[in-house]
């Protein structure tokens, strides 16, 4: 469903992605793990056209999507909903308007359909009676869930999560991780989660891909990862063992 072929990206002469190649199947939950600065977020941003790769190819459902113009990216962005590291909610809009934003921009829906879809999306992320609140009236964890509701409202086939649990307490982290799993299964979508949370990846991922210094150094199912001899994977697993 999603294919990366020899993807390279540099910033000011520093090569962040040095030739990434892997594929993601339909309906999979994929965790992309790696230490900070290894290009995990850059990879997601290349997929939705927020950044353009220097070289390499990206395919979604067999269609090449890199190198398109902003206008040509619209269908790709309808297909790929992205949840950002920050909640990225629009401060001047209510929760309702935030969730409705993508629906109104991407689609020509009647207003009653927009209202219905917004309430359904908020219910999916277990939020009720918050639609008339402003984002700043909500806790950080709730803002993250509104952000998730805004993304699922457009019914994407692919959900992209950029470090969804950064800055959250352990309880909210577990709740968000469970939400990612439930949503992926309920909506039958493909999910790509960029994270450094190996514990969560072992729990809910179908496959894990580990990046180090701009290259894929390991990939496999959680059980394959547990037996990996790759030093970075061993370090991640040791962290999990020491934390639990």
């Amino acid at each position, binding site marked *: 469903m999603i294919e990366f072929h020899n993807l390279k990206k540099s910033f000011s002469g520093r090569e962040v992605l040095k030739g990434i190649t892997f594929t993601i199947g339909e309906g999979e939950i994929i965790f992309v793990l790696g230490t900070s600065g290894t290009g995990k977020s850059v990879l997601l*941003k290349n997929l*939705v*056209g*927020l950044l353009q790769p220097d070289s390499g190819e990206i395919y979604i459902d067999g269609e090449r999507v890199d190198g398109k113009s*902003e*206008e040509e990216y*619209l*269908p790709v*962005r*309808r*297909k*790929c*909903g*992205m949840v*950002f*590291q*920050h909640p*990225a*909610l*629009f401060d001047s809009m209510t929760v309702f308007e935030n969730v409705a*934003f*993508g629906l109104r*921009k*991407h*689609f*020509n*829906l009647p207003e009653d359909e927009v209202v219905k879809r917004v309430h359904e999306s908020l219910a999916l992320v277990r939020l009720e009676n918050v639609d008339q609140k402003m984002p700043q009236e909500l806790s950080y964890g709730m803002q993250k869930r509104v*952000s998730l509701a*805004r993304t699922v409202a*457009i*019914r994407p086939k692919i959900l992209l999560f950029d470090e969804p649990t950064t800055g959250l307490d352990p309880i909210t982290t577990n709740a968000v991780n469970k939400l990612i799993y439930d949503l992926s299964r309920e909506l039958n979508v493909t999910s790509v989660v960029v994270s450094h949370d190996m514990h969560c990846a072992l729990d809910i991922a179908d496959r894990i891909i580990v990046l180090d210094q701009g290259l894929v150094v390991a990939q496999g199912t959680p059980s394959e990862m547990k037996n990996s001899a790759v030093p970075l994977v061993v370090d991640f697993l040791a962290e999990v063992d020491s934390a639990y």
Partner: protein
Amino acid sequence: MDFSSKFCRPQRRSFERELVFEQIWKVTQQSALTTALAGFFVGAVMTVQFTMQLKQFGALAYLGGLSTSATIREIGPLLIAFMLSGKVGAFTSAELGTMRVTEQIDAIRCLGANPIQEIILPRFFGIVVSSFFLLAIGLFMSIFGGLFLGVFFAGINPDEYLRYVPVVVKWPSLLIGLFKCFVFAFLLATICTYKGYTTTGGAVGVGRSVVNTAVATMVSIVVFDWVSSVFAETAAIIYLAW
């Protein structure tokens, strides 16, 4: 229901007018009182300065004309534009910079909108239009401030103060003042939206953008003021010679 095929919006709409009106209202509402107050005191300061000079030559009758002319052509637009660059420019730059570093601008793109149409153009036109009106309000208040101080500080009666205003302040002076207001508003809107939109580097980057906006706006306003003054004086000399 297949959303993508049934309801998908084929083309983006051009930027929406209500967003521009919203910005005009927001900026005007935020700054009208401050601008009016600043304008009043700019006129008052000019009157105090001219009073001291003109008294020496027994030419206090010209106070209203000279003070109003200098305020409208030169000092009024300049000082009020400085104040707006500190208030509107810094606010807009910080707002856009924060939207950039907290990924709101990326979110707008991912949600099917164009950030230029959605947040930049409405702010740009909103600032140009409202700053022009604010500068015009400021200029009006500066005339009122000059008159007020002329009456209470220099002891001139209002009729005497206003008698030489139409003699000294001709249409070209008013047009030059309004033209400067428009260009200062344009410079302010261009610089603050550009600096805010291109912010990088987290909270430090937002701070840097705000400082750069203030410096770039003030320098460009002073430079343009000098250029336009030279141009206006040259045009006046040519007109008089002709």
